[in-house]
Every structure is written in C-alpha cells, then in structure tokens.
C-alpha cells in the first residue's frame, strides 16, 4: 500500500473552511496521480460533523482529534498534535494551507519528523516516475516562479497558498472511514501559554468574499480619500462590495491591517478589482492578480499597475473615482 496524502483541515463554526476545501481538491488530485489514499485530519471540539463533510469533499479516511481549536491553543500544542498524527498514520505528504496554522506548524512538523517543508506553494504535483513531489511557488515577491522537487525518502510537508485551487465540490454519495485519535498528552512544562485572542470586528463583507473590491494604495495620501473608495465599492458592489488597501496605507495607519491585499495580507480573487493610486508592486499584485477584471486608476502613466490591468485611466483619483461612482450609478439606475 502506497503511503497516502494527509490534509490538515481547518474548520470555522464546525464547518470545513473554504481554504481547506481547496486543499482537499489539491490532495485528491495528488492521491489519484500517486495511486494512494487521501486522508484528512480534523481537530476541534466535536469534530464529527466536519469529518463527515471532509469525506463528501474527497477524503477517504478522516482522523479526528477532539482538541481545542488552533486559535484557542498554542503553536507548540498543534505541532505535537501533528507529529503524533503523522507518527500514527505515516503519510508521504502533508498538506497545510498557508494560514496561521500552516505557517506555524508546517515548519515544526518537518523539523521534528526529519521531513522537508515547502511553504506558500501555488501548485503541487507528483512526478509519477520518481514519486518526487513538485512544488511551485512564487519567489522574489512574485517576480519569479520556482519549482522545487522533494524526493520520497522523507516526509514532504507543503503549505498551499489560499485561492490557488478551486474548492472541492461536495459529493454526498462518497463513502469514507472516520477514525478517532487520542489527543496528545498535555505538556507538563509548557514553553508558552495563550493569554488572549482578539478578533477585529469586520463590518460588511470580508475582502476575500467580496465580488467587487476597490483598493487604495499610497497614492490615496491619507485616510480621507478612502471615503471616496467606500462610496464606489457600495455603489458598484452593494453588499458584496468591499474596500481594501496595499501595505502602505495599512503601515501608515490610514486603514486597518485587516484589509491589506498582497503577500503580507490577504490573497483575493474578486470579479472586479479597482486599483486606485496603486503603483503595482509585485508584492501587492500577487494578492489580486487572479481577479477576473482589474481596473487601474493612477496619476502616473508609467505606473507598473497599467501592465497588470485590463482597463486603465490616467488621472487624479479625486476626480476619477467620484465620476466612476456616478457613471455606474446611472448605468445601474437605467
């Protein structure tokens, strides 16, 4: 029996997250190519329901561990949990999302299992002859794409960037096995303790769920300009319109870090991305490059953003954005 693929699943409100559904898609493809089985690890309080969901999404076996969720726990505890799971289930490949959990645990799991990690990948494939795992990932901020090959002699641990794969579609007829594992022993002398988890109150739709995103860069010049962007997002997108930003407005404190798009922020793929006062640095573009339509509004005709956009207007956003808002309003009203 060939060693299988293990997806480290994440849940929110007892349901498999969108990112995990993408991992299950990637994992199913890998398992089919390798002629092996796909397993998923589901943790949290009462993981049964999410385990059943993971089977409909492509898992052959689901291991459940009744344990605190990742945000209620410590990276150390989750690293122990994953090491234990891999010891018991001996996968060939473990797939994480490039999420808080994946970023913390994937490197530690690799280090403690004598394995090799590859982070923030956008594609994974099996070389069917050598059985090496081929991992594609953007490097140099997105200025180059690298393919790394990791041989089957060690455990391969990979973290997949959200939105790199389509989400697996549920198939209620799929059959699978659910195996409960005991949680790891709690650490007698913990090295860290979680004191507090604070979640920001997000008003309206999250940027990753919005269909239309109006995004501002350093060219906006301050917090006030973002009001014009909000108006455009509301008129163009209604309840599924959102405002986002590049890193500069976040670092400057004009807007919250929670709405940053890019390598150090969120990766989004809306139907329409309107980039206002954004120069188009690669580190930003990796966060929005797969949007269906990209519009650029910038004063500088040589701004790189125009090479990444479908439509461009050269001009002052203070005039262009309200004009666009008005024009869309009249088209929608017609």
């Amino acid at each position: 029996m060939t060693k299988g693929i293990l997806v480290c699943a994440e849940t929110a409100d007892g349901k498999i997250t969108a990112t995990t559904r993408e991992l299950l898609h990637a994992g199913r493809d890998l398992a089919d190519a390798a002629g092996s089985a796909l397993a998923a690890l589901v943790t949290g309080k009462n993981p049964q329901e999410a385990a059943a969901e993971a089977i409909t999404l492509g898992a052959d076996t689901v291991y459940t561990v009744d344990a605190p969720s990742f945000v209620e726990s410590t990276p150390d505890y989750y690293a122990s949990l994953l090491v234990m799971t891999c010891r018991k289930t001996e996968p060939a490949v473990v797939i994480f999302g490039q999420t808080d959990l994946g970023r913390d645990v994937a490197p530690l799991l690799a280090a403690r299992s004598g394995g090799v990690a590859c982070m923030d990948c956008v594609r994974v494939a099996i070389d069917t002859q050598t059985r090496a795992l081929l991992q594609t990932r953007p490097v140099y901020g997105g200025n180059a794409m690298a393919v790394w090959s990791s041989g089957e002699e060690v455990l391969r641990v990979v973290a997949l960037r959200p939105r790199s794969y389509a989400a697996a579609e549920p198939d209620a007829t799929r059959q699978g096995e659910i195996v409960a594992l005991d949680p790891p022993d709690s650490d007698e002398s913990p090295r860290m303790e979680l004191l507090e988890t604070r979640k920001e109150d997000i008003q309206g739709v999250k940027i990753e769920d919005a269909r239309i995103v109006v995004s501002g860069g350093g060219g906006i010049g301050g917090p006030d300009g973002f009001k014009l962007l909000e108006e455009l997002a509301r008129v163009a997108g209604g309840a599924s319109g959102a405002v986002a930003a590049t890193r500069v407005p976040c670092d400057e404190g004009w807007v919250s870090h929670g709405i940053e798009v890019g390598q150090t922020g969120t990766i989004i793929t809306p139907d329409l991305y309107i980039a206002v006062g954004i120069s188009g640095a690669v580190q930003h573009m990796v966060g929005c490059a797969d949007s269906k339509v990209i519009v650029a509004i910038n004063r500088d005709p040589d701004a790189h953003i125009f090479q990444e956009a479908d439509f461009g207007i050269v001009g002052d956003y203070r005039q262009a954005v309200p004009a666009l808002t008005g024009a869309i309003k009249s088209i929608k009203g017609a």
Partner: protein
Amino acid sequence: MNIVVCVKQILDPNLPPAKFKVDSKARQIIPPEGIPLVMNPYDAQAVEMALRLKEKNGGKITAVSLGGPEAVSAVKYALSLGADEGVALSDEAFFGSDSLAVAHILGRAIRKIGAYDLVLCGRQAADWDEGLTGPLLAEELGIPVVNLVRDIENVGGDWRFTRVISGGEQVFAVFLPALATITNEAPQTRLPTGWGIISANRKQIPVWNGGDIDVDPTRIGSAAAVRKLTALTAPERKRNCEMISKETVAEAAGTLARRLGETGAFL
C-alpha cells in the same frame, strides 16, 4: 537581556519588476548592475524591535548574518542602527544550503555567541519569501517560536508576545529563551545615524567559517539539501491594458463604467 538578531542582505524587493531578470537555464536571478543590496526589510524591523527592547530593558544586541561578502554589510548596517556587536558567517561549504542547513549554521553560531534570551528574525526574507528559517532555527536551538510578532513587552517579569493572526491578534506568555519572527505590522525601522555609520565602518566584523562554529558538514551545503530547485522562470503577464483616455476624467469614467458594464462585472 541578550538579543541575537539574524539579518540577511538581499536584492532590493522594491525594485520595479522590469529590473528583475530571470536566467532560467542557470535557475538564478540576474541582479541588476549597479544597484546595491539592502537588508531584508523584515530583518530591519527585527533590528528595530531589538533596539526598542534594549532601550526599555537594557542588554546587548548581536547581529548575525550568513552569506558571501555581503554578510559583513548586513552586520555593519545593523551596527549603524545601534546593534552592539555582530558576526558574519561565510564559508564556501555553506553554498547551496537549504533552510534546514541555514538554521543549523545559525544555531551553531548562536551557541558560540553564548547566553541569549531572545532570538529575532524577520517573518521571511523578501527574496525567497518562505518564512522557514525562523521556526527551523528555533527547533535547532530547542526553544519556542512565535511567528508574525508585532510587539514584545515585559509585564511584571513575564514576557508577552503579541502576534498577528488572520483578522486579529493573539497574546502569548512565553518563557525565554525564545525566538520571534517579526512581522511588517511591527514598528517601522529607524534610519542609521551619521555617528552610527562612522562607528560601524570602523568596527572589524569577525567572519566565522564552518570550523569556527563546529557545524556538522553532513548537514550543510547543496549536498545535504533534500529539496532541489528544478526550475526558475519569469511569471507570465496575462493582461493587455485598454487605456481609456478622453478629454476629461469624467468622460473617461463614463466610458470605463460602460465597458465594465459590458463585462457584467457589477450587474
């Protein structure tokens, strides 16, 4: 408190994309001529964190950099910002090391530096963008790691690390010694002072090789790397921009709205 900061000199990540050239055959980035390397911006924020901690709690900051001759420049830059000491790690045998090997080399160097309370790294290097070295170094040293740390403070003798998570943040009480990878949400970096630059330039930076720090030769270099780079290519540019230029911005906006309407984007 004794703080070790790991720093790396890289190609300026803010270079315009047109300056980046990929040699797919050699699987290398061709650095543009005449443009100096810079300290990885996330590492610079780790130095800033160290300086702030030292200002509050006292202690000593040691900067460590692994690389070719440029490693000395990274250390000097850290000194010019206010680090107290520094060491460069250079050896031909280090060439081709993967993240595990780099963690091993840094770990050996840190053991030689001596007692430490905190090790700080940037959240990732803005060249390979992987974020592996910090956590792997913590494992090598056998100390806990907290990633994407934005603030570290001493509250009644307890060390609290505040780190950024998706849509919020977490606060951990951490027993030192520990490692933190510093996120871009941490305070921005100060600029070096004139005096800082002068005194950093006067300092002789020790350069340690593998033998100096007793690395395990079977764990370093390209021979030890399990993961191999098999391709490096320039990304595809997928779009052709339709520039909408009219007499007035208002007219252009009207045309754009119509064109977007045709794509069905906001209907």
